[in-house]
C-alpha cells in the first residue's frame, strides 16, 4: 500500500510562486529565481527611517542610478546563497593551497628582492583598499532597490573582506608567520606620500552618500587596480622569475573576472533602462570621467614606485589601462570626458 501511495502521480497545482509566475508564466522556476524575485518589500512601508526621514526604508531614491523594474536585471551567475558560498569555498581553498605551497617551499624567501618589495610595498597596502570596498559594497547592499541588485552587492561585500583576508594571509606568510609586513604596509597606507592620492580618493568615496555613485567610483578604480596589479604585473612577474607573485595574483584576477560578469550586466541594465536609461548614462559618465581622472593621478606615484622596483613599465601601463577602461565604458554607451 505504502509503495503504491508513493508512486501515484499527483499533479501539482502550480509550478512556482505567484510573483515568479507573474513574470515568467507558470513554469518551473530555478532556485535563484524563487530566492530572488520580489523578495524585498516594495509597498506600504510602516515608518520613516529615523536616519533618513525624507525617504522610505527601501527606496529607489538612495541613488541617482535607477531601474524602472529592478528585476529587469538578474545576476548572470544566478548566485543565490548556496552557489555563492560554494564558489567562494573553492576560491579560498585554492588560495589556501597556494599559500601553503609557497610556505612549504620557502618561496617567499626565494622571491627576488624587488618582487618582495612589490608585495610588501604595493600589494599589501591594498588590504585597506579592500576593507573600504567591503563597506562601499555593503552600502549598496542595504540602500539599493530590488533583491536582484542588492544580493550581488551583499556577496561582493563579503568578497572584499575575503580579498582583504587573502592579502593579509599573504602578508603573514611573507612575514614568516608574523604580522610585521602588515604593520609596515599599514604605515605606508597612512603616511607614505605614494599612497595618499588613493587613500584620499577612497575616503571621499566612503563619504559619498549616493550608493550608486560610490560603487561605480569603486568599480572604476577596481578596473584599473586589478588590471595593473594582478594582470599586468602578473605577466611581468612570470617573465622575470617571480612565479610566486603570479601564484598569488591569479586568485585575485580570477575573482575579478567573476566580479565583471555581474557588474557589466548591471551597467548594461542601467544604460538600457526604458525610463531612467538616459539619466543613468549621464550620471555614469560624470562619475566615470571624474574617477578616471582621479585614479590616473592617484595611482601615478604607486606605478612610479613599481617601476622603481621592477622593470614593469607600470607608468605606461597605467595610462594604457585608463584608456582601456574609457573604451570599455564607451562600449557600454557611457562616454567620458578626458580631463584637460
Amino acid at each position, binding site marked *: 500500500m505504502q509503495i503504491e501511495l508513493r508512486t501515484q502521480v499527483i499533479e501539482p497545482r502550480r509550478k512556482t510562486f*505567484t*510573483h515568479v509566475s507573474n513574470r515568467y508564466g507558470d513554469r518551473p522556476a530555478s532556485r535563484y529565481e524563487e530566492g530572488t524575485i520580489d523578495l524585498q518589500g516594495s509597498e506600504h512601508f*510602516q515608518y520613516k527611517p*529615523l536616519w533618513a526621514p525624507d525617504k522610505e526604508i527601501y527606496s529607489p531614491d538612495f541613488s541617482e542610478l535607477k531601474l524602472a523594474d529592478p528585476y529587469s536585471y538578474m545576476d548572470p551567475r544566478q548566485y543565490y546563497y548556496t552557489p555563492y*558560498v560554494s564558489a567562494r569555498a573553492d576560491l579560498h581553498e585554492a588560495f589556501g593551497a597556494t599559500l601553503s605551497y609557497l610556505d612549504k617551499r620557502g618561496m617567499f624567501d626565494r622571491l627576488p628582492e624587488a618582487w618582495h618589495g612589490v608585495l610588501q610595498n604595493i600589494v599589501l597596502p591594498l588590504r585597506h583598499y579592500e576593507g573600504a570596498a567591503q563597506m562601499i559594497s555593503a552600502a549598496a547592499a542595504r540602500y539599493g532597490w530590488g533583491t536582484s541588485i542588492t544580493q550581488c552587492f551583499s556577496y561582493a561585500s563579503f568578497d572584499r573582506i575575503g580579498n582583504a583576508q587573502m592579502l593579509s594571509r599573504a602578508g603573514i606568510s611573507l612575514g614568516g608567520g608574523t*604580522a610585521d609586513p602588515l604593520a609596515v604596509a599599514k604605515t605606508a597606507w597612512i603616511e607614505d606620500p605614494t599612497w595618499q592620492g588613493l587613500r584620499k580618493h577612497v575616503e571621499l568615496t566612503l563619504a559619498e552618500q549616493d550608493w550608486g555613485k560610490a560603487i561605480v567610483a569603486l568599480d572604476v578604480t577596481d578596473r584599473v587596480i586589478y588590471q595593473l596589479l594582478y594582470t599586468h604585473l602578473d605577466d611581468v612577474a612570470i617573465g622575470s622569475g617571480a612565479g610566486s607573485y603570479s601564484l598569488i595574483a591569479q586568485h585575485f584576477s580570477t575573482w575579478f573576472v567573476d566580479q565583471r560578469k555581474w557588474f557589466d550586466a548591471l551597467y548594461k541594465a542601467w544604460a538600457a533602462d526604458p525610463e531612467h536609461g538616459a539619466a543613468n548614462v549621464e550620471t555614469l559618465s560624470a562619475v566615470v570621467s571624474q574617477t578616471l581622472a582621479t585614479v590616473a593621478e592617484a595611482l601615478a606615484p604607486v606605478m612610479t614606485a613599481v617601476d622603481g622596483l621592477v622593470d614593469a613599465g607600470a607608468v605606461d601601463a597605467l595610462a594604457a589601462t585608463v584608456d582601456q577602461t574609457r573604451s570599455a565604458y564607451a562600449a557600454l554607451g557611457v562616454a567620458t570626458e578626458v580631463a584637460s
Partner: protein
Amino acid sequence: MTIAPKAPRKLSMKDRYSALTRDLDWEPSYVSKEQIYPLTTFEGITIHDWSKWEDPFRLTVDAYTKYQAEKDKRLYAVLDGFAQSQGHLSLTDASYLNAMKLFIQGIAPNEYNAHRNFAMLARHLEGGGPRFAALCQCLDEMRHAQTEIHTLSNYNKYYGGFHNFSQQHDRVWYLSVPKSFFEDALSAGPFEWLIAIGFSFEYLLTNLLFVPFMSGASFNGDLPTMTFGFSAQSDESRHMTLGLEAIKFLLEQDEKNVPIVQYWLDKWFWRGYRLLALVAQMLDYMLPREFMSWKEAFELYFEEQMMKGLFEDLAYYGIRPPLHVDKAIQEKEHVSHQAYWILYQFSHAAAFTTSVPTAQHMDWLEEQYPETFPTYRKLWEKEQRNIDNGGRHFIRGLPQLCQVCQIPMGFTEADDPFVQAQRESIFEGERYNFCSDGCQYIFEHEPVKFRRAWLPVHQIYQGNCGGPTLPDVLNWYGLEPGDGGEYLGSIDHQNWLKWHGDPAHVENDHAPAAAGAEGGQ
C-alpha cells in the same frame, strides 16, 4: 635563560583574527570620521573605544564559506529527496501546513529584512570586528530567507496559502504584525537595531520563536523544515553571541547608554512578545500532533532561561527586566486561545485555514491549561453547535487594530480574562487605540513614529486596498480559492483525502471535527 632573538613571533589566534578584520581600519584624514560614519551618534549612544568590542566568534571568510557550503549541500539533498518521494504525503495532516504558511508569509520576508539591515551595520559600525560579524549575519539571514523559501517551495506546488507570500507580507492585515515589527527595527538606527534584532529577537526570544516551528515540524513529519532548523542552528548560535556581545558592549561603554538600552529592551520585549502571539496560537492550535503548549514553552524558554539566567546577569549593569513582563507572565494561560479565536473568525480573509479543535485536541489543551481552558472550551463547543446548525462563524466586519502591534483588539486585561483590554492616547488631537499597556507605553515614547503606521483596516476604509467590498480586498490580497477560510472541506483537505485514497485516514484522526465539517458544508 636566553631568548632566541630570531624566532618569528607567530601570531596568536586572536591577533591573527584581528589582522584579518579590525586591523583593516584606519583613521581617516581627508574627510572627517562623521562623514564616513554618519549614523553612530544620532541615537544618543556613546562609544568611547570601539576596540573594546570582543569578537564573539573568530570565523574567517575561508572557514565560513567552506562550512556553510557543506551544510547547504546536506540540506538541499534532503529537500530534493523529499520532493522526489512525494514526502509531503507523510505529514500528519495537510492542516499542519498552516503553521508553515504563517512561517513563509511572516518569517521568511523578515529573514530577508534582517539580511538587508545587517548590511547596514556592516557599513556603518565603526569597528572592523563588529562590521565583519554583522556581515556574516547579513549573509546568514539571506541564507535563512532563501532556504526557507526553497524548503517550502515544494509544498507550494501542492497546497494553498504559500503562493503569494511576498506581496501578502506587504498587504494582508495579520501580516502587518510581523511587517510592522521588523520595519520598526529597519527604520531605527544601528544601535537600536542591535538591541531590537541582534539582542531581543535573536537572543531573548529566539527559542520561543524557532523551537515551536522546528519541533512542530519534527513532530508532524516535516523533514525538510526540521532539517532546515537544524541547519540554521549553528548560524543562530553565532547570532546569539553577537547579540549578547552587543548589549554588553553598549552597557560597558558609557553609563549614559544604560537608560537608552533599557527603553529599547522594554520596547522590544513587548514588541516581540506581541509578535509571538502568532506563534503561541500556532503552537497550541495548528499542530495536528502537538508537543508542547505555549505556556510550557514560555515558562521554559523565557521565564527559566531569560528571567532567571540572563536578567540576573544584566542587573550588574543596572538593567532591570523589561517593563510589562509581569503582564506577559499573567497572560500566558490566555494569549494563545485569544489569538487563535481572532484568527479563526477572520481566516476567510487570510492565507491559512482554521478549524474548531477536535475533541481530543481540546482534551490536550485542557491538560495543559487546567485553569483557563475550560472557559475557552465552552466557546469552541458553542461554535461547534453553530457549525452543526450550518453556521460557521466568520466576522464580516473589520476589527479595530492596535496602533502599535497591529493585532485586532481582542486581548483581555492581563488580570481579568473577561474584560477586553483597550487603552487610548490622544496625540495632537487624534485618538489612538492600543491592546495593552505595553503597546501604549511604546506609542507614548515615539508618537511621531507610530502615528504613521500603515494600519490595514484604516487603509481598507480609506479605499487603498483594492476596493470597498470584501471580495475586492481579498482579490487585492492575491488570495486564491482555498487559501483561507475553514480547513474542513477546503481544497487542501479534499486533496489530502483524495491523495490518501481513503477518507478514513483523516476521519480516524479527526473524528469529531470531521463530523463538524458535514454540518458546515
